[in-house]
């Protein structure tokens, strides 16, 4: 058995003394293999996570906005022209299935390595999620509501923007939440395509960082995903005030 694994497994039984025997007090925490997390190191170096976090944020925001813009237009087109639904579902499905990490490098002859390729690949990934949810949201609008709107003299365009889209908002936002949270996680892989982001604090220069750095970077990514989720829920609540009155 791997000696490191053994040491981890037995920590619980022998307690602190085990560490003291094996590791020198003079070694800094990050040089001690048996330490999973070094608070001192994390406190001292938290500043160096700022830039990668901002880069990560940029990757996610650009990717999701681009993906949303394209998928939203596709969904509106498919909503009007039924025959477009299946081919668009198939096409976005292929883009969704191709793993982002492969997509980065498929773009190599076109956009090379770096941020552009990462943003293109990540937005391609989000298309299907947003497209499906938007289309489902529009399809779920009750026919009676649309009839009533038409009876009141609204044009098709007015029905779309004033009746159908507001009523489809919960589903559209649900799609955006799934797309955004997944994109935050996948964007850690951008480092492999020289696209920056939190991945650089996990893997850089051909080597994995030590555990503390990986945990901090992963923790920031999870926090970022949760924050986006909370923000999107908030936006949905603001955009659909009638649902709040219905709930209370």
């Amino acid at each position: 058995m791997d000696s490191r694994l053994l040491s981890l497994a037995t920590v619980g039984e022998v307690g602190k003394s085990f560490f003291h025997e094996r590791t020198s007090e003079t070694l800094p925490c990050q040089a001690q293999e048996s330490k999973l997390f070094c608070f001192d190191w994390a406190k001292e170096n938290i500043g160096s996570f700022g830039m990668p976090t901002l880069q990560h944020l940029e990757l996610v925001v650009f990717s999701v906005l681009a993906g949303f813009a394209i998928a939203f237009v596709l969904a509106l087109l498919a909503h009007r022209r039924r025959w477009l639904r299946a081919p668009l579902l198939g096409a976005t499905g292929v883009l969704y299935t191709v793993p982002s990490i492969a997509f980065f490098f498929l773009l190599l002859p076109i956009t090379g390595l770096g941020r552009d390729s990462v943003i293109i690949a990540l937005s391609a990934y989000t298309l299907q999620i947003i497209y499906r949810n938007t289309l489902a949201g529009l399809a779920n609008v009750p026919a009676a509501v649309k009839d009533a709107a038409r009876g009141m003299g609204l044009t098709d365009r007015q029905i779309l923007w004033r009746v159908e889209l507001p009523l489809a908002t919960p589903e559209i936002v649900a799609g955006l939440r799934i797309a955004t949270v997944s994109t935050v996680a996948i964007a850690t892989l951008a480092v492999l395509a020289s696209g920056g982001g939190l991945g650089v604090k996990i893997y850089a220069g051909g080597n994995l960082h030590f555990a503390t750095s990986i945990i901090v970077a992963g923790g920031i990514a999870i926090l970022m995903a949760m924050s986006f989720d909370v923000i999107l829920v908030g936006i949905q609540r603001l955009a659909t005030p009638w649902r709040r009155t219905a709930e209370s």
Partner: protein
Amino acid sequence: MIGSLLPPFLPASIGGAIEFIFEPQSSSVTGGKKVGGFEQVVELTITQLELTLLALAVALVVALPVGLYLGHRGTGELLAIAIGNAGRAIPELALIALMAVVFGVGFQYVTIALAVLGIPPILTNAFVGIRQVDRAPIDAARGMGMTEAEILFRVEMPLAIPTLMAGIRGATIAIVATATIAPLAGVLTLGDFIINRNVYGASGLLAGGILVALLALVLEFSLAALQRALTSKGLKVSAA
């Protein structure tokens, strides 16, 4: 080191990548030993497929019974949904890297890490799929004297196949995609062409992208075919 020093625009061409897939190429760092070629491609593909299927099997064994049970009982909705949401937020690079740094390299650790990614979509979709089944056929089945197990396996599961399979397909895609970075934890998959780019060069990088994309698409289409085969004839008629 070398990876980060490469110029942003690599001289990668589709032709070079295809050549790399079928014929071993000379490399600047292996001392005359040729890299790439069909034999290595097949070997790495098999490892990636093995890793994917094993991790998927582990995820299925863990997630499916829990999801089906909770769905049938109709309890634990918050838990089942929360697991699905939390699963999406796991950064796969951090997960694999942490496994490698803490436990060391090894097939078994990568399998566990990948299974962790597969559990949330399977569990949540199993729960939602079973939960969404219309109450009327379940009541009818109970009235006909079916046991709870019979109701689950002969009524609820067949009706939940589309949602169930969507979860399994999602898990498979996530696992096979992440198996690409398994070389970081010492398991050589097709991602080796991507991660050890100083060995394989730009052609290897593009070839890796092409091969991983193809592998994922083949798996997705196979599972879609399996789903069609598993969907009962009655459901297909009503859907058409």
